[in-house]
């Protein structure tokens, strides 16, 4: 499959100490630096922009090969020449999230007041703060509106929040495997993950950045548990069954014996190299509090703004099951917002949004092809 080749990460300072970002919670934050990547070419009319929002632990490297290690972007199967997010036609922008740890300002960044990492002094974020930074990045790039905003899981929530706040800025919104309001079970999983991190003795009340120890055990356990929720029972059975890691006889001990245990241990370990425990706390908390339709005017605003939606869920996703997507669809549809919805059959659970179960990519492609047609018609008019 065609890929973009090497893609170049960029960085920009969007807010400064003197001109800080005003957060939804009332505090200010500056400077704010953002890491982002772009693919394809911006049209002269600046009307072919597809903005990609990443999920909890994603980054700006959505497609192509990373210049350092050749690592493929996390959505490389969706974004590229001739793919649904077609870089031959569209100008794709993908930034790292505010509060993250992969190039954009977050809890591990230096606090200008102290010179040390923010740690727990980093302000609590809300979904609209992500959107504010995304909009500032667009502004920096000289782009007024996006043809489409696309995101899965937490990425889909950013897209929904953006459309709720500024529907006139988003012509088409693609919301995959997301939720407009977490259930008690969703929050419970996040709570356990956060507890694992905060109860790690090396957490040091969130001020571990200045020491030589990090809450690695807690973060690894949080990641292991999250991984269980990302896969379906069926997918785990297919992938690992009850197969043993070594030999044919069970060891009758407490160490890693089954293959699934080894897989989780590996996922937990490798996560430590690329993610920060404080970012994990901050970003999961944003999801817990997210509830855009609690404001009764929100959906009226979307209806007036003219955004067209595509909502996609996967039948074995139990992290954000189809009922979450249907709630979004119901709310939008009742208010007269144009919305298409599909539940895709996939054995892979929540992770399906990163994979290619049959019918998924063609659906996104059909929606974006139509978005492109609208653009062409406007251009011709």
């Amino acid at each position, binding site marked *: 499959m065609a890929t973009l080749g090497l893609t170049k990460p960029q960085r920009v300072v969007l807010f400064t100490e003197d001109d800080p970002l005003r957060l939804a919670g009332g505090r200010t934050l500056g400077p704010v630096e953002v890491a982002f990547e772009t693919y394809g070419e911006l049209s002269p009319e600046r009307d072919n922009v597809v903005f990609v929002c990443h999920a909890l632990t994603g980054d700006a490297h959505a497609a192509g090969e990373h210049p350092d290690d050749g690592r493929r972007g996390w959505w490389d199967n969706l974004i590229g020449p001739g793919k649904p997010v077609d870089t031959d036609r569209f100008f794709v922008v993908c930034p790292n999230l505010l509060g993250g740890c992969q190039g954009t300002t977050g809890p591990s960044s230096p606090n200008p007041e102290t010179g040390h990492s923010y740690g727990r002094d980093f302000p609590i974020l809300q979904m609209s703060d992500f959107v504010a930074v995304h909009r500032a990045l667009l502004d920096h790039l000289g782009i007024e509106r996006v043809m489409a905003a696309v995101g899965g899981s937490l990425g889909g929530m950013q897209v929904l929040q953006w459309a709720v706040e500024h529907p006139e800025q988003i012509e088409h919104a693609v919301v995959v495997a997301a939720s407009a309001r977490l259930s008690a079970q969703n929050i419970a999983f996040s709570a356990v993950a956060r507890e694992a991190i905060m109860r790690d003795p090396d957490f040091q009340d969130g001020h571990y950045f200045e020491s030589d120890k990090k809450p690695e055990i807690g973060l690894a356990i949080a990641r292991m548990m999250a991984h269980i929720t990302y896969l379906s029972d069926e997918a785990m059975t297919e992938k690992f069954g009850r197969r043993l890691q070594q030999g044919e006889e069970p060891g009758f001990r407490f160490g890693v014996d089954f293959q699934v245990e080894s897989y989780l241990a590996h996922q937990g370990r490798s996560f430590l190299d690329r993610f920060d425990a404080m970012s994990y706390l901050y970003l999961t908390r944003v999801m817990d509090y997210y509830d855009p339709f609690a404001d009764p005017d929100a959906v009226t605003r979307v209806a007036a703004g003219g955004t067209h939606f595509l909502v996609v869920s996967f039948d074995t996703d139990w992290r954000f099951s189809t009922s979450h997507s249907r709630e979004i669809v119901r709310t939008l*549809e*009742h208010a007269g917002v144009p919305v298409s919805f599909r539940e895709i059959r996939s054995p892979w659970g929540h992770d399906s949004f990163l994979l290619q179960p049959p*019918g998924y990519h063609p659906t996104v492609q059909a929606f974006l092809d139509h978005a492109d047609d609208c653009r062409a018609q406007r251009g011709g008019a």
Partner: protein
Amino acid sequence: MRNDLRVVSGLVPDGSRVLDLGCGAGELLSHLATRGCRGTGVDTDEEAVLGAIRSGVSVIELDVDHDLGEFADDTYDVVVLSRTLQALHRPADVLTEIRRIGRRCVVSVPNFGLWKHRAFLAVRGRMPVSRALPHEWFDTPNIHLATLPDMEALFARTRWDVEQRVLLDESGSPLRRQAGGNLRAGAAAYLLQR
């Protein structure tokens, strides 16, 4: 556009909000959009749904038999069942449910009472296959076949009033004379109001 869809679209007032159950690739809704209508389609056929999305029609992939609870009371001006009712498992329940969602309903259905169908059954003793009913009995999507009086009895039973009835020939075009319908019509389109 399919002949019968032309007739169906003629029964939908300009500017209506339309819910098209069994919308296929969204042909009707695309056409109605040119007349100021807004709407939503519902279908479960993958190719049809992709076609509808591709042409800019909003389509929600749901099972008409079971999932109409997703739609709120009084949210549509017109609900369309074009060549769909006879393919549903629970047509009476669906008609009742639609009464909650929309003030009006447009239904188009094939007519099992067409003289040719009766003759086919009487003479050959086998289930009819015709232009209006092109499938063999074992691979037909049409699982609830009825004559026009049967259909009208169901409308009455589900408390719908027939506001208008258009008899169609086997190709879906309106018959010139509307008399003697149950023998002569290959299908019919109804505008119902609650």
